[in-house]
């Protein structure tokens, strides 16, 4: 899952990004509200982590504009403003959750997973499709009940495909899910990782639709 982190403090931004990457998220960082808006227009991120006190354009303004555009992606506010009025204003402006600094990285990751799950319309913390089970909290994949070890990229690819079973994702869309801005995109990477996934999950687990892209075979 690819996250956009809008945080103006370089130290906090670097630490949060590093922690979330350790939890398997792809994280892109911006340091002001204007850059956050530009990044949101790319429409490649699954969730926005938003600091309210951003320079150039206030976090609440970014959030309000985003919701006015009809952008329904989950937003988690990370801020030092802990007054009830601030939380209410943030949630009323369209935020899905609110975390006050300082916070625990584990709690942040758990809340992000919960938001992504709810956004996908699932209540259980396990994504199931046929014989395949994916548990985001533990980053664990099972096929027919047996645990399967996946690389980080393979996991990200499977997670992206499972997010909306039946939907076809193009190569470009899959690349967006796999790499942040600063990552070097290896050529053929998607093919390599898809190959690996098929080998581990079964050849028929992922179906190729010629000229369109890939999809998880519905159960």
């Amino acid at each position, binding site marked *: 899952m690819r996250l956009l982190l809008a945080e103006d*403090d370089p*130290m*906090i931004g670097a*630490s949060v990004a590093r922690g979330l990457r*350790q939890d398997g998220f792809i994280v892109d960082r911006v340091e002001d509200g204007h850059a956050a808006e530009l990044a949101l227009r790319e429409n490649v991120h699954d969730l926005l982590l938003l600091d309210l006190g951003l*320079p150039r354009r206030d976090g609440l303004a970014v959030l309000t504009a985003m919701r006015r555009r009809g952008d329904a992606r989950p937003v988690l506010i990370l801020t*030092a403003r802990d007054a009830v009025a601030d939380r209410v204003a943030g949630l009323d402006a369209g935020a899905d959750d609110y975390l006050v*600094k300082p*916070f625990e*990285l584990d709690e942040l990751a758990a809340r992000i997973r919960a938001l992504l799950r709810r956004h996908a319309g699932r209540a259980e913390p396990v994504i199931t499709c046929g014989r395949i089970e994916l548990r985001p909290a533990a980053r664990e994949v099972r096929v027919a009940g047996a645990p399967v070890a996946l690389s980080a990229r393979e996991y990200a690819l499977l997670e992206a495909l499972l997010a909306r079973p039946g939907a076809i994702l193009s190569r470009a869309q899959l690349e967006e899910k796999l790499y942040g801005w600063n990552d070097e995109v290896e050529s053929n990477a998607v093919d390599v990782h898809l190959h690996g996934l098929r080998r581990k999950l079964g050849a028929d687990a992922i179906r190729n639709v010629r000229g369109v892209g890939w999809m998880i075979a519905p159960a």
Partner: protein
Amino acid sequence: MTTAAPTRSIRRELVGWLTLGLVVAIVAAAVATYLRARDEANALFDYQLAQMASSITGMPLTARGPLGATPGADALVVEIWNRDGVEVYRSQPQRRLPQQGPIGFRTVATESGEWRVFATLAGDQVVQVAQPMKVRRELAASMALSTILPLLAVAPFLVVVVWFGIARGMAPLERLAAAVGRRSPRTLEPLPESGLPREVQPLVRALNGLLARLDGALDAQRAFIADAAHELRTPLTAVHLQAQLAERAGSDAERAAALAELRAGLDRATRLVGQLLTLAREEPGVTDRPLAPVDLAAVARSVIADHVALAAARGVDLGLAGPEADSAKAAPVHGDAASLRTLLSNLIDNALRYTPAGGRVDVAVAREGDAVLLSVRDAGPGIPPAEHARVFDRFYRAPGTADVPGSGLGLAIVKSIVERHGAEVTLGPGLGGPAGPGLAVTVRFPAVAAPATP
């Protein structure tokens, strides 16, 4: 007000003075009435004595019987002698008055008090009519008394009316006291100015002015604390996250990197706390260190010496601008040496922070007419004029400076110190360089007439 001293009461004092004035006025009225009444009584009774004497001279006096006036203590005494001094008539045999007096009025003292005597010649007889002075005094006294009695009767009533009148007049003061009593540091709204007597309005206006200034100062203080708490939370959040990353680290290399970041975070939090303390100390009205003549050139040389190592580490050329002979001249200003060092330290810190390696930072101290100018010019990116007003605000950091570490307090500290010295600070373009136009911070101090003590 000490508890030992009795509480003064305006009301009691006013009523006391009023009573005293009333008593003095009544006494004065009584004395004046008495004196005037006595004079009039004297004139009247003297006339009466003369009349009596002349009426008696024409009467046949045959016997020693009472005549006309009723005998009594206050009655007139009439005596008649013949040419030979033989008593012919006496109206009151028991009263004896000196007989050989001059013709006309006189006052004689006897064992029964003073008497007014009138003697006249009637043919070959001497007629003497006398009356005790007591009568006249009593008449005058009774007239005086009748004048002051109504006043005496009215006086207590007047005092009571005034007592309550003053209470009514003082009621606005008591309401005001209650209103002031209700004010607390949290509720400093102005006191109501309407419906107050003219005498109290200046007091209320002055109090409202004080309340407004107090409210402003408290607001500033509250805003400062809120800002400070918020700003402290940022480095602490960073430290918190860095500590979590250090805990999570899987390898020694990861742990070492995380700990290095943690240390950087702690340095930043420590520096912020230090800057906050400096700002709190330099806040106008907090420091009471007296200002004394200080040689700004000496301060500049010393602060530059302190920063040479840091400048060298960053590859920046830091020094005094101008020929050495010029900078050796004393530049006395009226100031606080410790604060001036803090001011220049902050300016040089900023300049070194924003000037890229290979650039230079010039400090200059110069006399210009009545002023001493201290300037620090750097070769950094500069500050756009639109930002000039805001960069002196606490915690404000110009856009695009997020990657340069800083607390956002340096220029706020500079401004506090500048204000305490009655100086002015201006921003302008600096040395210029690849990073931008650079920044020149110029502080203009009023010069001291007397030479600085070395």
